[in-house]
């Protein structure tokens, strides 16, 4: 589904974050991206979302080179993503509200591309229910817990029916029960929909839970993807058995070599 071809990217000066970097990601796969802070994890997510343009090479999604945010890609950032002046319901419906007036290229949408209000309401209701936010519709972000805010951001993204979901540190600063609940919600999405999920994290446990494949990024220039397979240990419920611990140890060792 995603082909990263000879990607090069830098923020102006210093060493580039990606240099001639290539990677293939298949449809419906679950990936985790892990690495020390500053290694370019979030940058990779922005590039995949079409919010940053590569300096060289290209990213092809579904056979099309990415030049702007693509309608089927959903991005959930770790914080600050919700409109502080809009309540949960308005925030969850923001993407659909925008889509009601503007096309995916940012211009006014032609009438036949617009989503009618009834369908938009139905979708927002569905995801508010699904994510346990139905009772919080009228609340403003400042009055919500972090987990509730994170779920609202997720509802907003899922209402757009993405086939690619990009998550930036979705579990950081969440307490353990909230975190497990959110992990369960996200992983369950893949059972019902053929959705590709890429989770960026600095947390080893979260990477092992969320990624069937784990991409390790290093500090400095990333030239070759370092990918480890994690078919057996992923999933929330596997969290306590030996395979999970082994995988965590393996990952810890690999990361240790990089620092």
């Amino acid at each position: 589904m995603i082909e990263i071809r000879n990607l090069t990217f830098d923020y102006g000066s210093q060493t580039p974050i990606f240099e001639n970097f290539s990677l293939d990601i298949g449809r419906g796969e679950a990936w985790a991206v892990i690495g020390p802070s500053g290694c370019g994890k979030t940058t990779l997510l922005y590039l995949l979302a079409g919010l940053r343009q590569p300096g060289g090479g290209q990213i092809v999604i579904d056979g099309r080179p990415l030049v702007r945010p693509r309608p089927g890609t959903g991005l959930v950032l770790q914080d600050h993503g919700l409109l502080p002046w809009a309540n949960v319901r308005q925030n969850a419906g923001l993407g659909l509200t925008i889509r009601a007036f503007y096309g995916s290229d940012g211009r006014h949408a032609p009438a036949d591309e617009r989503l009618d209000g009834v369908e938009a309401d139905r979708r927002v209701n569905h995801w508010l229910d699904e994510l346990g936010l139905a009772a919080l519709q009228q609340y403003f972000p400042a009055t919500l817990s972090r987990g509730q805010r994170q779920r609202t951001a997720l509802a907003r993204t899922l209402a757009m029916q993405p086939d690619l979901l990009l998550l930036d540190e979705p579990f950081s600063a969440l307490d353990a029960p909230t975190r497990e609940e959110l992990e369960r919600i996200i992983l369950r999405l893949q059972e019902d929909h053929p959705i590709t999920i890429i989770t960026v994290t600095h947390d080893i446990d979260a990477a092992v839970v969320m990624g069937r494949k784990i991409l390790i990024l290093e500090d400095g220039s990333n030239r070759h993807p370092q990918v480890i397979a994690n078919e057996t240990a992923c999933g929330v419920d596997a969290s306590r058995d030996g395979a999970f611990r082994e995988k965590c140890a393996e990952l810890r060792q690999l990361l240790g070599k990089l620092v």
Partner: protein
Amino acid sequence: MKNVLDIKAAALGLVMFVLLWQVLAWLVHRPILPPPTAVIPVFLQLAAGELGLHFLASAARVLAAIFLAIAVALPIGLGLGLAPGLDRAVAPLIAIVYPIPKIVLLPVIYVLMGITDVSKVFLIALIIFFQILVVIRDEAAKLHPELILSVRSLGAGRRALLRYVYLPASLPAVLTALRISVGTAIAVLFIAEQSLTTRGLGYYIVVETYQVLRYPEMYAGILAMSLLGLALYMVIQRIEMRVYRYQEGGNEGARSK
């Protein structure tokens, strides 16, 4: 938001003000300070007639200036907030022009724009314009980059960002700036209306009453001008409170869930 002026507080303040006025009038005991008992009946009697017309003329000028200032400051302020390079280039100019007391430009504006209502409105709009311009620019520039990126990832182009992010983000600050600058605007209106017009409270207070020693009528004019300022202040504050609702955490118990 502290110091909210609601109807009850305003009424109480009015009573205290009238009492203080009465006491001062007794103490001073000169024609230049007539007691409220002499002024209020005159005010009520004139309000339905000529004073009312002068009030409407002044109110129309201030309102026109407010709308003109917003209409011009909004696109320029948002544009500067969205284009940091341009903002840096013109920031020194704005910093220099911003504190100039715009009233000194009155003669220049009269000569350039002619002695019409347009020039008076323009002068007041100029004052409000700079106040609003600066806050819109700063609010737009202050927005969290992550917020912009996540809204862009939902498919928002430039126009959608302006409409759903930048505009609502700067609205509270615009209202606050407006509420604060309305006082200055009315002070400047008072000066601008003293000459070259025959309508407006400034003209009424200075030319029609003060200069011919009609002190009770003059105070009726002062009262009308004060009410104009008070009314604008309270209306803006009301809108502000509606807009600020989200910051007050009005939904108790949300955290416990």
